[in-house]
């Protein structure tokens, strides 16, 4: 049958995957600390119909090759770790990392998850936890007698709170951030959590503001870095690419129909 049918089908499949990535970005346009993804494509293998340099006559060679391609494939979904926009929340336990780095949280199974979502809350034992109740690592507990509106988080990650009746704040903990050699290699687990992988490398723990780690800003949240206009343009590109591949399929099909009708 016609190779073009299968070739165009790989094109439609890749554009479908492109749309999956775009729609996930759009779905997370308001997700705190979400980092957008981008689909990257590569061409598939080539069939070499004629090698360049093959003999074309007594004293001549073909100067160029004849190669037929077999379509495209998804090569990567690249995560773009650019800074998201800031949003002021006036909430003492909301924080964002300005620069590189992730908060560490302890998952229910004891492993460490990494997140850029700084919308922390106090749980029933007054620990700082994520919206899903995963505590920050190292754990930070606000004393019972310190009202939550006295919590202060410095740009270097020191957390202090003023006990009721006291004049001076007391340091109650230190937030550390981790960076990765290759953040694009982190594996997303949902719930704004990333896990480390072989590709991401080991976490490099540091104090905010030191060794290139980002600083912490209290009372702000980092929003999603998805740009709706960009995604819309990507969507148009994906749709038109899908459409043109479908045209290649219908044309090939019509050609096959002609070939079939040759025999009457």
């Amino acid at each position, binding site marked *: 049958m016609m190779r073009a049918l299968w070739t165009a089908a790989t*094109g439609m499949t890749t554009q479908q995957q492109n749309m999956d990535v775009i729609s996930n970005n759009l779905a997370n346009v308001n997700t705190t600390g979400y980092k957008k993804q981008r*689909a990257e494509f590569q061409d598939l293998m080539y069939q070499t119909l004629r090698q360049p340099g093959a003999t074309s006559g007594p004293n001549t060679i073909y*100067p160029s090759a004849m190669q037929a391609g077999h*379509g495209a494939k998804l090569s990567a979904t690249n995560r773009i770790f650019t800074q998201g926009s800031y949003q002021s929340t006036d909430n003492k336990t909301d924080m964002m990392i300005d620069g590189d780095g992730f908060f560490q949280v302890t998952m229910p199974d004891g492993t460490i998850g990494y997140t850029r979502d700084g919308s922390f809350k106090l749980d029933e034992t007054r620990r700082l936890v994520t919206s899903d109740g995963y505590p920050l690592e190292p754990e930070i507990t606000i004393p019972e007698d310190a009202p939550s509106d006295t919590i202060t988080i410095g740009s270097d990650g020191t957390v202090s709170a003023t006990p009721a009746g006291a004049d001076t704040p007391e340091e109650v903990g230190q937030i550390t951030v981790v960076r990765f050699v290759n953040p694009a290699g982190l594996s997303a687990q949902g719930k704004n959590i990333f896990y480390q992988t072989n590709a991401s*490398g080991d976490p490099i723990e540091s104090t905010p503001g030191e060794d290139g780690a980002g600083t912490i800003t209290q009372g702000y949240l980092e929003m999603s870095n998805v740009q709706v206009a960009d995604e819309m343009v990507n969507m148009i590109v*994906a749709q038109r*690419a899908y459409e043109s591949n479908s045209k290649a399929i219908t044309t090939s099909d019509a050609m096959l129909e002609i070939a079939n009708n040759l025999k009457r």
Partner: protein
Amino acid sequence: MLRGLYTAAVGMITEQIRTNTIANNLANVNTNGYKKDETISEEFQSVLLHRINDSTQKGNIFDLQNIDTARNYLLKGTVADTGSGEAVIGSLGRGAKIAEIAVIRDQGPMENTGNKLDLAITGQGYFAINTPQGVRYTRDGNFYRSAAGQLVTANNQAVLNTSGGAINLPANTDNIAIGADGTITANGNSLGKIELAGFSDRGALLKEGDNLYRPQKGANPQTATGSIQQGWLEKSNVNVAREMVKLINNYRTYEADSKALTTQDSLLDKAVNDVGRV
């Protein structure tokens, strides 16, 4: 059987191959650094038609020397009488074949990605990539930093520097700057220079898939004249509108060839079933 049947058939096959190439271009309309293929067809060498056993002529039709003489006449554009019992009537084309699938190396459009490790080449040149099969070349500058801290492609293959080694990036990505000539600096320290290879011969590289080009034997990479743009990606140079027009054109040519074929078949039908009726 009728010569024209085969002539029309090779025309159809040619259009089919053209359509395959267009389908591949369309499939790669969003592939980084993809260079479109263009199918170029040529006429088959035409054959000479001879009038044999011409009573006014004498000679042997298998006399090769005379055929050569006839060919020479033909090349001069004249109809020749070879004086050997076979007068040359003229030449007859036998359809078209694919002469070449040429890679059109026009610059693709640029997209700003804001990613510091995305590199685009403007002008001539290829990035050199270390693969298990040897050095390969690519225009796809969608690079990452591997777990080992090397600058790698999406397939985790190292991008080479001018001395043929991998490029190591320090843990802190904040200040990686890549100049137009490929010089990499991080926090003011030089990390080497990205190899930008150029080839004077357009047959030097073959497409291999995975956005890679394989150098042919004897291919000699030279310093390329192109420059590197950090934070940008070169997109595919496929023009959808153009490919669509080519697709329609192919389809209609295919249809016309099929009509030539069916018409000749009806002629044969007549010859076999009507003329030959006993």
